[in-house]
């Protein structure tokens, strides 16, 4: 990695003392979904009361199945969509009322598919430089210089400046996407499945690059991925999302060593590592993913839960916070257990 004009102070320590980069308090996003011709629309709570805090310099992994609301949450954090209720703060400033351009200076996305997230009719140099032109105030020489610096930083050869995305490999395209996200030196990057569309040998290159950039630029990441091995490798802390809510949130080591929520357990079980002889695990996640328009009563995970008991289908679990992190499950709620036993 080459020297770059460091515009930010040294990376803040990931210690728990670091100030929060991102704070979401009880964030909800509701959509009205059409049920068909002439039928009344129904509310769908894609994100339903999420509280999440990410400290400066931290990497937080967000995991969950498709349809659980990960991407909706990411869109709100990027300021692309206002929450229906709740508050969002980035770098201490409330997101509500902030201009799109100001949000874009602080937080940037890297998407899953580098084949569809790059404009095929623009050259690499023009794609990476676009955020500079949007923010304004740069001369074209300046822009070119900074694009060159950024290309070097993410490991793209200078000669690719005038190439088009179709002439690049998947890994190179994802590097372009990363360069574009970083050119305005944001404080935080939201990576939505950054390596899912890539081959394993390319995936490891991109993961290494993300690690290097984080150290070098003091970035904060929210890493959304369904690949738990990747999350384990990258993240300091993990939040598990199910049907619009965070059901468990704790540091990565604790989560992988001692998962508490039955859903987290099932997710961890389904990680297939290249270790022969272990066989295919039985996750015991019976029923299919529920229809979010027709939420299960009580704990929304109870129809698929192998460890459900008395109150699970009637009482909504509350978030229980302790030194071991946050979990939303009756199994760890002594009050509910006592009442069920009585």
């Amino acid at each position, binding site marked *: 990695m080459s020297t770059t004009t460091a515009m930010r102070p040294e990376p803040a320590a990931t210690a728990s003392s670091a100030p929060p980069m991102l704070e979401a308090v009880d964030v909800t996003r509701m959509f009205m979904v059409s049920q068909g011709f002439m039928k009344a629309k129904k509310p769908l709570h894609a994100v339903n009361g999420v509280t999440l805090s990410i400290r400066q310099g931290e990497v937080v992994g967000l995991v969950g199945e498709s349809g659980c609301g990960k991407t909706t949450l990411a869109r709100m954090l990027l300021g692309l969509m206002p929450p229906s209720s709740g508050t969002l703060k980035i770098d201490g400033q409330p997101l509500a009322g902030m201009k799109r351009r100001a949000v874009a200076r602080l937080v940037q996305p890297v998407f899953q598919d580098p084949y569809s997230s790059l404009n095929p009719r623009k050259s690499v140099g023009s794609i990476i430089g676009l955020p500079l032109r949007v923010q304004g105030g740069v001369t074209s020489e300046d822009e070119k210089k900074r694009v060159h610096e950024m290309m070097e930083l993410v490991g793209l050869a200078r000669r690719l400046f005038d190439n088009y995305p179709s002439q690049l490999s998947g890994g190179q395209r994802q590097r372009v996407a990363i360069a574009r996200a970083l050119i305005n030196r944001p404080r935080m990057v939201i990576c939505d499945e950054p390596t899912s569309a890539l081959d394993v040998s390319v995936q490891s290159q991109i993961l290494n690059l993300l690690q290097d950039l984080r150290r070098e630029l003091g970035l904060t990441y929210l890493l959304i991925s369904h690949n738990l091995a990747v999350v384990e490798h990258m993240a300091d802390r993990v939040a598990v999302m199910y049907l619009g809510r965070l059901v468990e949130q704790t540091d990565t080591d604790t989560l*992988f060593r001692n998962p508490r929520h039955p859903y987290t357990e099932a997710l961890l079980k389904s990680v297939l590592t290249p270790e022969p002889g272990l*066989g295919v695990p039985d996750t015991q996640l019976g029923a299919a993913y529920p229809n979010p328009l027709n939420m299960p009563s009580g704990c929304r995970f109870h129809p698929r839960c192998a460890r459900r008991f008395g109150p699970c289908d009637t009482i909504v679990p509350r978030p229980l916070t302790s030194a071991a992190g946050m979990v939303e499950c009756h199994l760890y709620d002594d009050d509910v257990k006592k009442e069920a036993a009585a």
Partner: protein
Amino acid sequence: MSDRILTVEGLEVSLPVPTGTLNAVQGVSFHVDRGETVCIVGESGCGKSLTALAIMDLLPKRGRRVARELSLLGDPIVGVPEATMSDLRGNRMAMIFQEPMTSLNPAYTIGNQLEEALLRHRKVPRAKARERAVHLLERVGITAADQRLRQYPHQLSGGLRQRVMIAMALMTGPDLIIADEPTTALDVTIQAQILHLLAELQREFHMGLVLITHDLGVVARIATRVVVMYAGQVVETGTATEVFGAPRHPYTRGLLDCIPIPGKTKRGERLGTIPGMVPSLVGHIQGCHFAGRCPFTIDACTEADVPLTAAAGSAHEVRCIRADELMRSGFQIVESVA
């Protein structure tokens, strides 16, 4: 009846491209016995999917396939009339594709599509076909099968659709199932369930299963034997324990180093990488196809084509002239002549 279900010997697939001929598959050989799961693994463009399509005779129109031997249950399936092939396809051998939404017909009900294979290949009354469809849907874990038969593909979730595809492949009780990335489009939790189901069904119906995937985790867990492909060639083959426990080809080893394993790789540590890019398969590549990216390349690697050779006394084969030497030194030699 013999236990050998599929024999593939020296399979070549080529496609004409504007710049010449793309030699996508170059001399691939493997076999599948009854009750075995053979996994073909490799990165995009290595020729694994074309190998599957070539076996099913479903190559694109301009694609050409040549093979020393290609036979199902001892009968050749190359150079036979299309009528014979379509009797076999969907009957004795069936295929499961990656994206269940695009391989199911949106205009027909699930029931219709399930029964079709049986009605076409066996002279059975529709009621009998329906009975089997219900039975198999229940077997693959679909509840309320009776009602599902009347539904259309868009009314089902991705996991359910893939279950329907599996049930469809099983309708005629085939001897061989070829599954091309059957779980890639699915969530990890659903992936585990589908693989679990496939493994169970394969034991129950005593079939041969060819599973094509890029996911080494899937392969390690489900394969009886593994075929690692790189740039159109088989570079290593053996049992899952041989290939994953003691990989002998630098490419296989490199791939395994790229993958983080919870509890084994240290957090934040650099992962292994394979520098460079897959060579173009247009025209002929002299010598080892991996030479351009291999840290152990010497002059001899590119001088002559490298054969697939077995380790003494085993079926663990590798296409690398330095395999023994590298194995002895624990892949420590770094005297690459760059």
